């Protein structure tokens, strides 16, 4: 499912709204989630999951082409942990 498919499905669920509202709503939600992570805030959606930043310490890497050593600075990367409901719904039916 792509973003435009998601927008179409939401527009179908809300026939009283104009199609543009679903489009704008998805943009507002995703922008707010990106901005929260950029600020270093967590996102917690009950039944879906949580997003947080994971710290990656600085390390010495290598340029794979030249074999030259390069310092890779510390950074933060977004991390998602699925919530209980999502985990259970996605899992294969018990054999």
């Amino acid at each position, binding site marked *: 499912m792509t973003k435009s498919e998601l927008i179409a*499905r939401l527009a179908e669920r809300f026939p009283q*709204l104009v199609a543009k509202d679903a489009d704008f709503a998805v943009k507002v939600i995703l922008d707010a989630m990106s901005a929260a992570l950029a600020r270093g805030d967590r996102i917690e959606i009950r039944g879906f999951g949580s997003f947080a930043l994971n710290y990656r310490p600085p390390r010495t890497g290598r340029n794979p082409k030249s074999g030259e050593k390069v310092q890779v600075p510390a950074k*933060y990367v977004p991390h998602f942990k699925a919530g209980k409901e999502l985990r259970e719904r996605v899992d294969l039916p018990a054999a």
Partner: protein
Amino acid sequence: MTLTKAELADLLFDKVGLNKREAKDMVESFFEEVRTALETGDSVKLSGFGNFQLRDKPQRPGRNPKTGEEIPITARRVVTFHASQKLKSTVDATQNGNVR
């Protein structure tokens, strides 16, 4: 500060002009549509944000950490999230000041 469904609904009320009820329902529906897609085995690609993908993990040996007893961890399907290059660089650009 933690971003939750309540804050997202407030934003839809303020910015999109949905009423309180619609805003709350829209946030709930947004995550429900993503869950439904994943539940049916479909991956979800939200350009500019990231992709949710499914991984089938085979059964592997595990251990009860309390008793040391060996018990197999059953085969399962799990969700993984890969942040888009755009989200990664936005986070990195804003967080860099905090790291150094």
